[in-house]
């Protein structure tokens, strides 16, 4: 009988045509695509399976139940910037804002030019897959009534400053604007893969293992034969029984940008490109302070964006709402000075940028199966970072903000409209900024040349049989837009090619 197997203390052995590691944007999409084609599929996920009724409501609960290591993983470099990813059935699609942006056409040309993959054929296929995914996952514009004041202010600022922005399209059916996307959508409106593709996989007869971190991929000569690991209890973190899932046809690795390369490295895969070309969209928020209450947590978490600056200077700007408990540590200072600042919470709107950073880092396997990411921005990227903060600040002023709080160490806490120019000269030292990395790329980059890439343009790992990578780690360049749509379409494309 096909089933869901959660934490077990006794050993589990299974066999399927395909074993998929990871149930996030890439893994769940690949798994359901294979199952729809009639193959037997076993999906193995490190995290627990939580349904919307199980989701936490607070940031504390989200860090405990949904994020990997409480969101405490940081880059090793000059600055310790957090790398945020989920560890739960559905992967990061559970905690993200579900913003759906199609892959820009220039990306396929760039991949063709620089990596010998991509080009028009891939662009056409990805476009068709994105059409289908949009239908399946109810991609729609945020309803006007769910936008909330922060997003409406951004729209007003955009109209005044000509940022050519738009109301976001998201994988959400009738968003109710509860502002809880980052804690998981308790209303069940967000179409994360744990409520869409994974249940569909079960209905199609697939096996789903949760609480089951894969320790390594097993090889026989040059062929991937399956995966092995031990269950981990989601609350106590105690180790459970051993599991072994054999793959008759192929293993599909989709454990994320940090975990896929680490898993392949500890499995003994030899590739000079493994762990290379780690890239990200580092981002930060700038608070705008308004005379009237904004109540940014009322309304959708993210509702407005612009891609006007994607090519130059290389940025995406968006609105974002975070709850008081996260604003508390994001605002500088401590003691009564901090409390006086926090007293204005209802009057601030947080808008942010994501930098299309060209700097590259590496990912390697560390102690206890934890990936180690070495990454830091060069000066050119830091200039983009700083420019983005200025553009966000100017948008706030165009929307009527009285002042902005950029949060750059060593600069005035608050800037008025006549002080925005100070941001042009802000320091380039990354340690002075509070940033996070949420859009990640690379680690198992695709390309034609096995010396520079881990897998080919169909996600097949060079030099071994029956091993495919199907997540964000294959993306060899920075996209400059939110990546989930590209990841899902690539995974669907790779899975389709695999069963053909």
């Amino acid at each position, binding site marked *: 009988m096909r*089933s*869901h197997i959660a*934490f077990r203390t006794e050993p589990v052995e299974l066999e399927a045509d395909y074993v998929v590691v990871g149930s996030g944007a890439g893994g769940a999409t690949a798994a*359901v695509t*294979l199952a*729809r*084609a009639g193959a037997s599929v076993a999906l193995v996920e490190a995290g*627990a*399976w*939580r*349904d*919307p*009724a*199980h989701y936490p409501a607070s*940031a*504390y*609960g989200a*860090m*405990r*139940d949904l994020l990997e*290591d*409480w969101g*405490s993983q940081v880059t090793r470099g000059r600055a310790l910037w957090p790398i945020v990813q989920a560890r739960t059935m559905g992967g990061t699609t559970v905690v993200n804002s579900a913003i759906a942006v199609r892959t820009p056409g220039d990306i396929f040309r760039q991949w063709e030019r620089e990596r010998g993959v991509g080009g028009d054929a891939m662009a056409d*296929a990805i476009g*068709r897959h994105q*059409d*289908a995914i949009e239908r399946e996952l109810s991609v729609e514009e945020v309803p006007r009534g769910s936008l909330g004041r922060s997003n409406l202010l951004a729209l007003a600022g955009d109209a005044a400053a000509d940022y050519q922005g738009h109301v976001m399209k998201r994988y959400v*059916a009738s968003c109710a604007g509860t502002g809880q996307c980052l804690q998981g959508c308790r*209303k*069940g*409106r967000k179409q994360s893969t744990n*409520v869409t*593709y994974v*249940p*569909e996989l079960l209905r199609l007869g697939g096996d789903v293992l949760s609480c089951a971190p894969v320790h390594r991929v097993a090889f026989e000569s040059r062929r991937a034969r399956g995966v092995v690991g031990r269950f981990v209890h*989601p*609350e106590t*973190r105690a180790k459970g029984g051993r599991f072994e899932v054999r793959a008759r046809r192929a293993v599909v690795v989709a454990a994320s940008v940090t975990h896929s390369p680490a898993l392949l490295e500890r499995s003994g895969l030899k590739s000079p490109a493994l762990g290379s070309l780690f890239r990200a969209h580092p981002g930060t928020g700038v608070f705008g302070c308004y005379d009237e*209450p904004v*109540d940014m*947590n009322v309304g959708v978490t993210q509702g407005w964006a612009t891609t006007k600056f994607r090519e130059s200077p290389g940025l995406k700007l968006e609105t974002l709402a975070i*709850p*008081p*408990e*996260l604003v*508390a*540590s994001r605002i500088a*200072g*401590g*003691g*009564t000075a*901090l*409390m006086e600042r926090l*007293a204005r919470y*209802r009057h601030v709107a947080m808008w942010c940028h994501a930098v299309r950073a060209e700097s590259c880092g590496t990912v390697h396997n560390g102690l206890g199966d934890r990936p180690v990411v070495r990454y830091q921005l060069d000066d050119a990227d830091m200039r983009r970072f700083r420019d983005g903060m200025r553009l966000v600040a100017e948008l706030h002023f165009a929307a009527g903000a009285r002042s902005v709080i950029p949060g750059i*160490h060593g600069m005035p806490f608050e800037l008025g409209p006549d002080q925005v120019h100070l941001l042009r000269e802000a320091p380039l030292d990354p*340690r002075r900024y509070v940033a996070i990395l949420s859009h990640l790329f690379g680690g198992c980059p695709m390309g034609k040349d096995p010396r520079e890439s881990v897998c080919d343009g169909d996600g097949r790992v060079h030099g071994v049989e029956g091993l495919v990578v199907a997540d964000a780690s294959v993306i060899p360049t920075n996209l400059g837009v939110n990546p989930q749509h590209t990841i899902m379409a690539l995974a669907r494309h790779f*899975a*389709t090619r695999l069963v*053909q």
Partner: protein
Amino acid sequence: MLALVRSACVALYPRTDALPGIEDTDLDAFLVRFRRESSFLLWLGVVAGAFVFAITPLITTGIPLPAFLLSKRLRDRHANRIASHPIYLLRQAVMLVKLAAGLCWGGHPKVRAAFALPPYPDEPSRWRTSFDEPSPSSGDATRDASPAKTPPVGDTA
């Protein structure tokens, strides 16, 4: 250890006229829960941050006493200065305490009420076991992606 972390939290988020302080929340219960539920490394980081907070008044106020022995006024000054100290690693160490304490403070019903937000519901850690019904027990989901909506696989999809 708990007392050390507690005193740093109280200094970082004191009560003011406008807002409840962290001492007005369930801080003690929170810290016990956080120690139990968080990972060992994270808890260690928070304890290390609280230790840094305790031993650094000399560099922020010039007074060679641990933070918890300072007067209220000086401790408040220390809290502000150490949380924005020019030395990155000091700032980051205290940041961990500030983050953990912020989760307690900002998530508490009294603080949420001060910001016109409803209290959070109880949130025990729950997940789907092997024996649970294999259907999403979603809130008031208007649609769950059913196979009926999903076209078959293929490059021509």
